[in-house]
Every structure is written in structure tokens, then in C-alpha cells.
């Protein structure tokens, strides 16, 4: 084969991004075949992985199934539980005297508004007495009641209500490593990369390490996390900061054990708005992952820790909080020459909608599906990859910002600054303007790889009480009978599911004890 062929792929970094990318590439490119590309993953034995990132998207089910992982085994080994969405507490208004309010952003919509009939205008016109999240899907209620998204008799990976997982990030990386190196033919090297060498075309061709041999490659994937060894240090690609839009630049994380083994496990992430950010609360099998993401411009670390401890209560006593600085933004180029960055090295927004792992999967899938076996194809893929991921990140940023910029909270400078028009991207402003007199439609989300689609926007907009005034336009919504029928169908389904589904804790215990069947 000519030297113009790409045969050796080197992945630097063994965090969630590195191992997921290795797994997806190795499966899709069929690396067990000697004629395929060969993948090597190099990881530092001394630099720990980030080890947070416990929330995923339902796409992870396809990914895990595709790479040949047994669902029950994965769940047991990664302390995983089911995630049915997120509950947003106190985002809409300033909470009064200890009262709380919330809305759900579930993963299932019974009737996908984008496909057939959009219930939103009918809900806006008062066709249902329930809040939007409960009127248009059963899953909000199911999650609220602590019920599971499926039964022990439901086959692996199949769902009754759409779901993803909450998982232990460190265990997940370990689990993937075992699978990828044992079953998918990926070579593993434990070493610190000390130097990155470029050829005359400014392509990376070799990595020096602190063990004897250099690592030679034709194509490199930078999964080195915030270090960005290749894309940043070696290739000098700049960083587009978004701290003028998203303010949360610091996180404090804690691992809180359950008081006992019968404590109910929440089947959704609980995201509670606080004075200078929000707290996440994620229920794993054996503990909760709780943390506070906040703006260091609006609060101090000491005060932030107080807020976090107050949220957790006495269970936080004696537990240390880990501080994690967040660098918000994305690379000006994700792909340059023969190197692509995936994971924290490429971008990070803030974990509000838990989209980082999802975007890792998306990037690895695109890399695999368009993989350039010949060097002459590099330019084309580089430009399409960069274009699409810039769009996806911009769209993710718009969606995250939406949660802040239409909130009615005004109790602190943090919330007031967040609605300042100068902090809102133009693309989002235009949409919000349009949605003042017309609810969102599928035409507002026409990009093929839109990370957040119509249903997600509807849950957030109407969960936060965004006002869409249809008074002048009522006449066109004359299918009230159909809407009524659909609302009652959802109610009936909710009732049936409430009768049928086990609690989340019950199902988790059964999955750990017995496991799901494959069919």
C-alpha cells in the first residue's frame, strides 16, 4: 500500500471521549480485520481522567449495543441507573419562602410534535388543565413518581419510556477499556506523551513518550481532555470562548452515599437553580453525584460550597467537595490536517443538558462514517466536520442559554446579567422573537444534525412560562377535538404506566440481580 494510505490511527487519552471514540471507530471500521486501520490508544498512567460526566443521552443505548456490550453487565459494572430526563427546579421564578416549583424535560414525547400534530398551540389556548410537561407526555409523571422506564421482562436496550443512563464516569472508562482492548482489537499503551512531531505538511507523524518507543501514526485523535496536547499545544488551534454567553465557569462536585439501600433512586437528573448557578443531583446505584456549577464572577468558592452543602443537607457532613474549573467554549477548528479533537479538548459548554458525551458519540460516528483512508480525502472531511460541529456547538449553546435568558428570576445579579440582551446570541434572539406570536414548529429546526429538537425547546419554553400570544391567531387552531383526544390519550397512558411500572429502585435491584433478556 502506498504511504498515502491511512493505516495507523492513534488516540491520545483514555477518558470517556478516548474510549468511546476507540470503540465506535474499531466497530465501524472493523478493526479486527488486518486490512482495516489499526487503532492504538495511549493514555497517561499519571494524569487521571476528569471522572465526572454522569448523565447521558438515549443515543448511548445504540452506541453500547452497536459496540457489543451487554446492557445488564454494563449497568452493574458502572453503578448505572436509568435516566428519563431532567427536572428543573426553581428556574422559572425567584422561589418564595422555601417554596419550590419545577418542570420536566423528559426524553419521551408521546406524540412527537415534530412529526405529526403539534399540541403546543392547543395547550397555549387552554385545552389542557395540566402544565405543559404533564399534558404532553406521560414520562414527567412517571419520573416524578420514581417509577422505572421499563420492566424486568422488557428486553435489553428496549424501552417502554425512552431512557438513557446515569453512570459512574471512572468505572465507565474502565469498563470500556476492558471491552475495547479485549474484544475490539484496539492496542493500548500506557505512557505519557512528551512531544508531538509534525512533518513538512504540518501533519502529526509521531509522538514521543516517556517509555522507550515513539508512537507512529497516520491519523491522530486528540482526546487528551482540557490539556488539548495535539489540537492546542502542537497544532496551535485557538479557542473560541463563550463566557460572555454562558457564565458558569466553576464546578464543585461531591459523592453522597445513600442513607440506606432502600432509599428511592431518582430516575431523572434534578437541576436546581441557585443564586449564582445551579446544582445537579444524579442518583447512581450506590450513591448520588451532586454538584454546583456556578459563575465565579458572581459568587465566591466559599459561598458556593455553603450553597452546595445547604442543598445536600446533613448527608454532606464529612464529605469533601472537589473543585473543577470549566473552560467554556470550543476550538476554532476541531479538525486540522490529520488530527481531530473529540471530548473536552474540542469543546465544553457546561453540563446543564448533559450533552458532552452525546457530542462525543456524534463526533466519533461522523469520524468513522467519513473516515479518510486516503490522505487526499483529508481536506474534504476536515471542512465538513468543522462546519457541522461548529453548528452543533452553536446550537447547543443557544439551547443552554435559553434556560437562563427567559427565566423570570431576578433575585441576584447572576440572573439579571443572564437576561441582558448583549449576552444572548443573535440566532437565539431571532427565534425568541418569532415565538412571541407563534409556537415553535419543526421548520425552526431544519438542520439534519440539530442536537436539540422541537420537543426539547417546547418543554423548556413552556416549562419556564414563556409567553406566546396566540390571541390574534386563534382561528387557525381549529382541531381542538383532535387535541382533546390526544391529551386524554396521554392521560390514559399515564394511568396504565403508573399501574404497570415498578419503582426505579426495584428495577435497578432486579437488573443487578437477574439482568435483562436479549429478546
Amino acid at each position, binding site marked *: 500500500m502506498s504511504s498515502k494510505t491511512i493505516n495507523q490511527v492513534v488516540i491520545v487519552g483514555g477518558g470517556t471521549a478516548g474510549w468511546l471514540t476507540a470503540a465506535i471507530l474499531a466497530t465501524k471500521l472493523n478493526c479486527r480485520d488486518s486490512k482495516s486501520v489499526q487503532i492504538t490508544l495511549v493514555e497517561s498512567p499519571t494524569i487521571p481522567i476528569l471522572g465526572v460526566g454522569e448523565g447521558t443521552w438515549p443515543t448511548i443505548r445504540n452506541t453500547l449495543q452497536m459496540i457489543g456490550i451487554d446492557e445488564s453487565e454494563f449497568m452493574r459494572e458502572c453503578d448505572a441507573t436509568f435516566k428519563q430526563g431532567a427536572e428543573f427546579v426553581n428556574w422559572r421564578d425567584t422561589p418564595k419562602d422555601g417554596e419550590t416549583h419545577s418542570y420536566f424535560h423528559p426524553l419521551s414525547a408521546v406524540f412527537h410534535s415534530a412529526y405529526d400534530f403539534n399540541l403546543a398551540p392547543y395547550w397555549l389556548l387552554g385545552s389542557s388543565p395540566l402544565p405543559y410537561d404533564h399534558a404532553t407526555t406521560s414520562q414527567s409523571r412517571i419520573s416524578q413518581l420514581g417509577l422505572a422506564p421499563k420492566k424486568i421482562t422488557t428486553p435489553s436496550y428496549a424501552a417502554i419510556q425512552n431512557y438513557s443512563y446515569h453512570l459512574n464516569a471512572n468505572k465507565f472508562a474502565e469498563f470500556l477499556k476492558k471491552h475495547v482492548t479485549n474484544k475490539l482489537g484496539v492496542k493500548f499503551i500506557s505512557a505519557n506523551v512528551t512531544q508531538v512531531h509534525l512533518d513538512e505538511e504540518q501533519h502529526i507523524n509521531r509522538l514521543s513518550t516517556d517509555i522507550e518507543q515513539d508512537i507512529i501514526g497516520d491519523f491522530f485523535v486528540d482526546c487528551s481532555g482540557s490539556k488539548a496536547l495535539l489540537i492546542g499545544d502542537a497544532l496551535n488551534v485557538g479557542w473560541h470562548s463563550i463566557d460572555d454567553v454562558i457564565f458558569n465557569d466553576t464546578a464543585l462536585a461531591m459523592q453522597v452515599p445513600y442513607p440506606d439501600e432502600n432509599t428511592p433512586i431518582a430516575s431523572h437528573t434534578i437541576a436546581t437553580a441557585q443564586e449564582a448557578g445551579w446544582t445537579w443531583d444524579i442518583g447512581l446505584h450506590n450513591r448520588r453525584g451532586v454538584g454546583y456549577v456556578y459563575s465565579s464572577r458572581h459568587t465566591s468558592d466559599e459561598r458556593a460550597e455553603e450553597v452546595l452543602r445547604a442543598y445536600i443537607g446533613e448527608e454532606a457532613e464529612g464529605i469533601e467537595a472537589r473543585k473543577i474549573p470549566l473552560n467554556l467554549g470550543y476550538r476554532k477548528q476541531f479538525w486540522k490536517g490529520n488530527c481531530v479533537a473529540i471530548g473536552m479538548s474540542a469543546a465544553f459548554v457546561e453540563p446543564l443538558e448533559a450533552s458532552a458525551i452525546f457530542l462525543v458519540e456524534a463526533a466519533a460516528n461522523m469520524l468513522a462514517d467519513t473516515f479518510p483512508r486516503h490522505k487526499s480525502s483529508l481536506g474534504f472531511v476536515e471542512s465538513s466536520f468543522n462546519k457541522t460541529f461548529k453548528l452543533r456547538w452553536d446550537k447547543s449553546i443557544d439551547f443552554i442559554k435559553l434556560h437562563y435568558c427567559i427565566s423570570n428570576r431576578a433575585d441576584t445579579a447572576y440572573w439579571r446579567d443572564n437576561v441582558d440582551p448583549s449576552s444572548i446570541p443573535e440566532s437565539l434572539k431571532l427565534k425568541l422573537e418569532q415565538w412571541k406570536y407563534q409556537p415553535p414548529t419543526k421548520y425552526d429546526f431544519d438542520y439534519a444534525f440539530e442536537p436539540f429538537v422541537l420537543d426539547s425547546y417546547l418543554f423548556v419554553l413552556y416549562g419556564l412560562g414563556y409567553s406566546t400570544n396566540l390571541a390574534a391567531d386563534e382561528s387557525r387552531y381549529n382541531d381542538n377535538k383532535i387535541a382533546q383526544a390526544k391529551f386524554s390519550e396521554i392521560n390514559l397512558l399515564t394511568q396504565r404506566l403508573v399501574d404497570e411500572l415498578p419503582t426505579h429502585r426495584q428495577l435497578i435491584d432486579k437488573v443487578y440481580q437477574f439482568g435483562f433478556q436479549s*429478546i
Partner: protein
Amino acid sequence: MTTIVPLDSQKHQSLSLISNAGYAHIQQSHLLPLTVHEFAMAATNFPIVFVKDAQTGQFKACALVGLKPEQNLFSKNSQWLGSYIPEFAKLHPFVAVKTEANSDKYVICIDESSESLSQKGEGDKLFNDSVASEVLTQRGNAAVAWAQKSDLTDAFIRHLLEVEIIQSQSLSISKEDQSYNLTGCYVVNEAALNNLDPQVFMSLKDKGYLAPIYAALLSLNQVGNLLKLAD
């Protein structure tokens, strides 16, 4: 309501067993557990299906003895209407339960609520001065033997799942004006069996699984037998 408790020579000292108590305990069961050793015989009477236990999600092999839940067409006025009675039906009121998940030790349990047990000395005593009677020893051994065969059956089913020859099939059965629809049943799929890689197929032969697989396949024709009994 069944109340299964470990047998205790003190607590259950005065109990005795009425041996011809009939089939009241399975009167309301349309599915009866089978072991793989029984497939050949069972196939001459009932469809053999695989169903998931609602509590554990694990597959069990069962004889389908009714066309809808809570219907047992084979049990009528203390009589059994077939030429074959599943061994499980004859264990009652005894069950052997493993002491621990992966142990090979069993404890014998009884269903205290069973109508085949008497406090008044009818039938055979379970204990003679706290020592297990001959009847109890024999019935206890039978329960353990069944539990062991049931383990082998689980291994058999796991293998069939692994080689992907079991598939979900809702049984729609209709005859003239009557129609029945049974969901949650899984059966051996003939096409999948025929399409197996020769090596995989030979591994089934080597394990002695072919006979029960074909028995299960043929047994599906016994749906006709159920319809006849339902008339």
C-alpha cells in the same frame, strides 16, 4: 394465597399429606413449568413455550395448558385430561429452594396453605417423632431432583437464547367464533434453527439439545388439542 415456608420438624410435626388431593393448586394456571427432560413427553400433549417470569425476567419453559390466563383445560373435577402430567404438578405442596444463589444445597419448603396438607392425621404423616417419614423423604428427593433438572433447563434456555433460535411470538388462535390471543410467549423458530451455522448446529447436537428443540418445535401443533378441550 400460597405461603411457602421451610419445612420444620417441630413446627410441622403433626402435619400429614393427603396423596390424592387432585389438582386444585394448578386449577388457575394456564402455564406449568417444565424441565427439558420432559419435553419429549410433554410435546405429545401441550404446546411447549418459553415465558418470562414477571418477577425476575428470566425465561422458564412451560406447558401451555390453557388458552387464556387462569384457565387450565387439563384439570377437571380432580381429573387430569391428558396422557402426560408435568412433574411440577406432582411436587405440590413441596418445593426445593437453593440455600444460596450459587449453592447446590437445597432446603425443602412446603406450601402451608395447601389443601393436600392435613392437621387431622388424614393420609401419610410427614414426621414420625421429628424424623422424616418415608413419604416425606421420597417427596423431598423428588423436589430436589426437579430443581436440579430445572437448573439444567435454565442452561438449555440460555444456550438457545445465545444462538438466537428463540423468538417472541404472540399466539393468535381462532376457531369459528372463538379467538384467543396469547402474548408474552416465545417459541423455537424453525427458520432460525435451519439457518444456524453448521458448527453451531453441531454444538447443539453435542450437548444433547436437538431432541428437546425438535420436541418444542413439534409441540406447537398441540394448540389444536387445547382448542378441542376448550369446546
